[in-house]
């Protein structure tokens, strides 16, 4: 992990938008991210996913992928890797209620990933404040890797 990663989510809390300030349709700030094999494999080990497509270069080279790839759900890492410290997804107390993702191409070690993201909707249900976010990740060739939506309950 690089030294730039901020692990204290309280540090920038005051700079993040609260539910009242989030505008559906408004783009979120994003930053390009260089996806390394180390980051892919750290993610894989954390979820006990040791498939040789992610770890065995010879196996992966002989596969239809022609080389090592990342697992589809690598967007879990990319969501935080491609957003700055003041992004509201980091607000302490943000509760994830569910997500849906579609997969086009696998991400690969060495890719430079970019994200287009926005709040899509916000609503109140059972006294809880919800925001829906939608996201598309691209590789350095402009090809879609995956796209998805998430439902979060915002801190009160």
């Amino acid at each position, binding site marked *: 992990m690089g030294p730039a990663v901020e692990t204290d989510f309280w540090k920038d809390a005051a700079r993040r938008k609260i539910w009242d300030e989030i505008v559906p349709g408004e783009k979120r700030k994003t930053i390009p991210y260089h996806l390394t094999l180390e980051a892919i494999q750290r993610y894989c080990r954390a*979820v006990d*996913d040791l498939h040789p497509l992610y770890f065995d270069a010879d196996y992966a080279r002989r596969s239809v992928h022609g080389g090592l790839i990342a697992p589809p759900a690598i967007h879990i890492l990319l969501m935080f890797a491609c957003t700055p410290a003041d992004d509201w997804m980091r607000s302490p107390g943000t509760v994830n209620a569910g997500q849906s993702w579609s997969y086009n191409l696998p991400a690969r070690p060495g890719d430079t990933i970019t994200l287009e993201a926005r709040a899509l909707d916000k609503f109140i249900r059972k006294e809880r404040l919800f925001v829906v976010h939608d996201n598309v990740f691209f590789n350095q060739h402009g090809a879609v890797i995956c796209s998805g939506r998430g439902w979060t309950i915002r801190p009160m």
Partner: protein
Amino acid sequence: MTGIFDALAAGDVIDGAAFAVSRETIRDFCDASLDYNPLHLDDAYMAGSFGKTNFGGVIMHGMTNFALITRMLTDWAYAKGAVHRRLETRWLKPARPGDTLRPQGRLKAKQVTSRSRWVTIDIEMRNQRDEIVATGEAMVEFP
């Protein structure tokens, strides 16, 4: 490949691997995902309430469920030359250190489109008390 797709039937079960949740696995997931929300790390913070909800302690990232379900689906799909194309999930109960989670899929339907062939799969994630902690639906393509 045609034979593999033809042999699939509604009701076929896909079993995922068990995953034991601990503070260490949660911390590892923080480092792997860069998601350091205090929901997953801070006992003092989690002693409080969130509106109407009190979790009673730190909880696992919901997206760990997503990752474990994904692993089940990709292990199943890769072995068949198929491609995991979509996963939709809802979290119903939080998971905590000490829980053991196990995902399972059940093939719901097959669909042939103009260019490809697909299966839809219902997903459930259960804990060691057989409580459903997450549900979902997936699509796998058989090109």
